[in-house]
């Protein structure tokens, strides 16, 4: 068996290797330096000891330090900041959507903002309505920023390296409940290009499309369906915006059926966009309408049984696939 590491280690490697490769890479965010614990989840552990002032703990000022990252990026640095939890992007949206995402365009290409915003989220730990949301659709709806959502340690490494090297702002969303899941170790120094989905498994009856959290669930359901004679093709988007429609359409053209699965709430979500684009391109070739599997349209609830009811289940994915086959 190849070397196994978890996502925390993979992210730490990516940041370490990027900082070693380019002195313009700087990190800041709450509690990132070793004096404050090396990050709330230890993703940046050891880096301030190794790189000194290039790794900074900040006050609890998301608007302040996100804006500072915008300015530092305009001046030519490559800041990688950490917004401790994804819900906290709400207090610095102005800097992300009005500034980071727009300065290249509004300046006519004279300036650009090569920064990475790392953040993490996910339900499952009863963290309720302000500590669990997947809000990627807000940013996918904003031209000028890319949205990257890895599902395993090796992808986390390669995609973070590519995000740091990218010339534009990248929102890098990590699924923290699976931080400790082991996976194949990345090849250090190798980036995974942004905007390219990965076909995880070939199949012929239906295309299952996911990213981040849903890539933990889709293979499990696919395995069960395979046993029942349903051949599933699986696509991990890896980059959610811009979408790799070429990979999606090539697959759905072949299978004629598609199910999109994400933890974010259903309405106006990434699944809706993918579904619309598939219908626009392949309407006559589809054997069934594209299905969406997502969380319920409510805030993430606290009590365990409510949280479980909020999130889609494996049975929901299976039922969606069976509807496309009916």
């Amino acid at each position: 068996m190849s070397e196994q590491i978890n996502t925390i280690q993979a992210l730490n490697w990516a940041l370490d290797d990027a900082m070693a490769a380019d002195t313009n890479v700087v990190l800041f965010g709450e509690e990132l330096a070793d004096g404050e614990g090396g990050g709330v989840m230890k993703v940046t552990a050891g880096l301030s000891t190794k790189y000194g002032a290039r790794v900074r703990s900040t006050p609890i000022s998301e608007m302040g330090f996100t804006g500072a990252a915008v300015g530092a990026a305009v001046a030519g640095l490559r800041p990688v900041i950490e917004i401790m939890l994804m819900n906290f992007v709400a207090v610095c949206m102005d800097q992300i959507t009005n500034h980071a995402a727009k300065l290249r365009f509004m300046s006519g290409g004279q300036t650009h903002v090569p920064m990475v915003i790392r953040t993490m989220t996910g339900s499952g730990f009863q963290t309720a309505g302000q500590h669990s949301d997947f809000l990627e659709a807000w940013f996918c709806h904003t031209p000028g920023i890319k949205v990257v959502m890895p599902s395993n340690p090796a992808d986390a490494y390669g995609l973070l390296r590519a995000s740091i090297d990218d010339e534009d702002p990248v929102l890098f969303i990590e699924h923290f409940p699976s931080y400790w899941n082991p996976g194949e170790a990345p090849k250090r120094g190798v980036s995974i290009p942004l905007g390219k989905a990965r076909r995880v498994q070939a199949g012929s009856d239906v295309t299952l499309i996911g990213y981040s959290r849903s890539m933990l669930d889709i293979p499990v359901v696919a395995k069960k369906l395979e046993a029942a004679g349903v051949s599933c093709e699986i696509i991990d988007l890896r980059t959610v915006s811009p979408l790799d429609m070429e990979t999606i359409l090539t697959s759905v053209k072949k299978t004629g059926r598609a199910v999109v699965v994400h933890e974010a709430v259903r309405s106006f979500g990434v699944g809706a966009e993918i579904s619309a684009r598939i219908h626009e391109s392949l309407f006559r070739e589809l054997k069934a309408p594209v299905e969406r599997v997502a969380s319920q349209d409510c805030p993430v609830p606290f009590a365990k049984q409510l949280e479980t009811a909020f999130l889609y289940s494996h049975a929901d994915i299976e039922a969606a696939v069976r509807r496309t086959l009916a």
Partner: protein
Amino acid sequence: MYVDPPDSATLLSIYRKMVQIKLNDDRIIAMMKAGKLQMPYYSARGQECIPAAISVLLTHADYLVTIYRGIHDMLAKGVPAKLIWAELAGRSTGACKGKGGPMHVTHPESGCMVTTGVVGAGMPIGCGLALAAQLRGESRVTMTNFGDGASNIGAFHESLNLASVWKLPVIFVCQNNRYAEHTSLAKGTSIERISDRARSYNIPGIHVDGNDPVAVYHAAKVAIGRARSGGGPTLIEAMTFRFNGHLIGDPGEYIPKAEYAAAVSADPYPKYREWLSSQGHASAAQLDAVEAEEAAALEAAVKFAFDSPLTDASEIKRDVFADAAA
């Protein structure tokens, strides 16, 4: 007023910038009234001596972050007038190719790094530009300009705190024109002097008559010297007034008539001219020559703009991301 003036050449440089700003402002309004320019225009007429006096202490290497009411700041910093005019006219030769407009003029060559249309948002960005200079060991400073209204938004407070904690080489310049859109200072601000807010963040605050270029010059000199020598940030509050309301078309009914009349009669521009000649810093003929030269330069800038082609609609596809910018 005018206590301890610098040498006559510096005084005349300040005057030249004031003339340039005033002539450009008059002309922009005239062109709008003639239907030749369509845009939201936030005139800074009345505030010109603040950037004029500060900018003689800066070089192109120093960074400027300004706001929607900022054309006076840009001109003083050295953004070529013809690029501003072409931008306002939506021309391909505009500073931002017509994609930013008056609220987002950018020109890194002269240090004009970011112009924001969101109240207060420039201050965190200014912190980041200053952080980049600090990390690289550069001596350049960052000026970040804003109005009195911006001192009530969170970004102001987060930025002053962050700049203080990190001892950033940034100067926060509050051009206090006594009205935040339509709300007077007394109604919207909990404190009489915004410069007193500096004390809460353990940084120096300077309150100065913004209609006295000599006083502004001295305040800026202290602040810039402190920033360049590693002494950290300063908050300057320069008291002034805007003669043309919040934006062109605003009848200013919320301003008491007596207050408005007093402000206009204290117009810093003719007063300074009178003082320069009465004190022998420049002859009337010299001042006339400055005005004639600036008027001719303005005509050339306007001609350049309107002789340039309109930006092609295909530009909307460019500069969203680097990939599509080639």
